[in-house]
């Protein structure tokens, strides 16, 4: 593989792959939050 094919392939897949993985992680965070919601805060008495 020549240098520039290597460079552009790694750069383009690297950038888009990093963005894609982190975007999916953000969706997974939303999903986990939905599945395991924080318990509702109990209103203070008095």
């Amino acid at each position: 593989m020549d240098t520039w094919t290597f460079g552009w392939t790694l750069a383009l897949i690297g950038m888009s792959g990093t963005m894609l993985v982190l975007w999916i992680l953000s969706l997974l965070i939303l999903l986990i939050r939905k599945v395991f919601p924080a318990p509702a805060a109990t209103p203070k008495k008095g």
Partner: protein
Amino acid sequence: MESALVSGIQGLFLGVLNLGPGHVIMILIGSLLLYLGISKGYEPLLLVPIGFGAILVNIPLSEMMAEGGFIRYFYDIGVRTEVFPLLIFIGIGAMTDFQPLLENPKIILLGAAGQFGIFITLLLALALGFDKLDAVAVSIIGACDGPTAIYVSSKFAPHMLGAVSVAAYSYMSLVPLIQPPIMRALTTEKERMIVMGAVKQPISQTTKIMFPIVVTIFASILAPKGAPLIGTVMLGNLMKECGVVDRLKRASENEIANIVTLLLGLCIGATMEADKFLKAQTLVILALGFIAISLDTAVGILFGKLMCALTGGKINPLIGAAGISAFPMSARVVQAEGQKYNKKNYLLMHAMSANAGGQIGSVIAAAVMLSVLQGMGIVGQ
């Protein structure tokens, strides 16, 4: 008797007789690193052992890095095997609070944009004639993450480990000087004054526990070559959040991290032997490292501007600069810069989210890079 005396005296001066200009220059460079660490407080935990290691290895005939040498022993078991940076990652995971990111997960995208400098620098390094894997090692300085830089460079370009590590840690400590001019150049005063509302999203403890487990499984399956990097950070974070292994968590963030930091620093310093370090290439590596971190900042801010436009002006583009791994220094820089233009602007928590995203982003970027290299057949299966 007379000849024995002469030989003995000669032995006493062997070090002086073998002292070359390269040794002297490297001892001065080691001393400079000590000065920066001790007097200026730049990453002292790393620069002090690195500086001292650089001095030790450049003492003529000390043979610190020769087969069986004192530092060579630690280098072989910890750096060559890539174990030391991974142990540091467990400590980093145990020290990192991902709560701001869990509250505002879309900000994690800034942590991806903040890694683009790695890939642009890769192209620059190739244009300057670096070999493929050498270019990968240089570009990883842009991860702005010492252990990642050490992990990747010791894997692909161990001969450049000293220069890459020194560049990575030096520039990380210079983030407060490097970032503000770029932030000001790429944003308007109106953008810098945008006030971001507080995100008050309650996060359950189960979510905090599930996060490192899900990230490890998902990200490691997508980028298996990066599983050691992702897995160790997330193991540390799981120990922090699960609350049942407090002793292990404390050991990871204290004793283990401290011992490994000391040995890792010494080993990195010991790779700075005069004949390997004093090359024009070292200056090029330092320059490319600076460009990489500047590009990370620039692309992060530009992506922040895009998010600002897409959200109708609700996101202050300055927080894009925090999408790098220098945690929490970069978030503090954003907070300080934002307050210069609007005293009532508190960007810290939003910048912390981006900064935590940058920490994950740097590890994911390296993992993606390693997996793509594997896929292209550049590195072994």
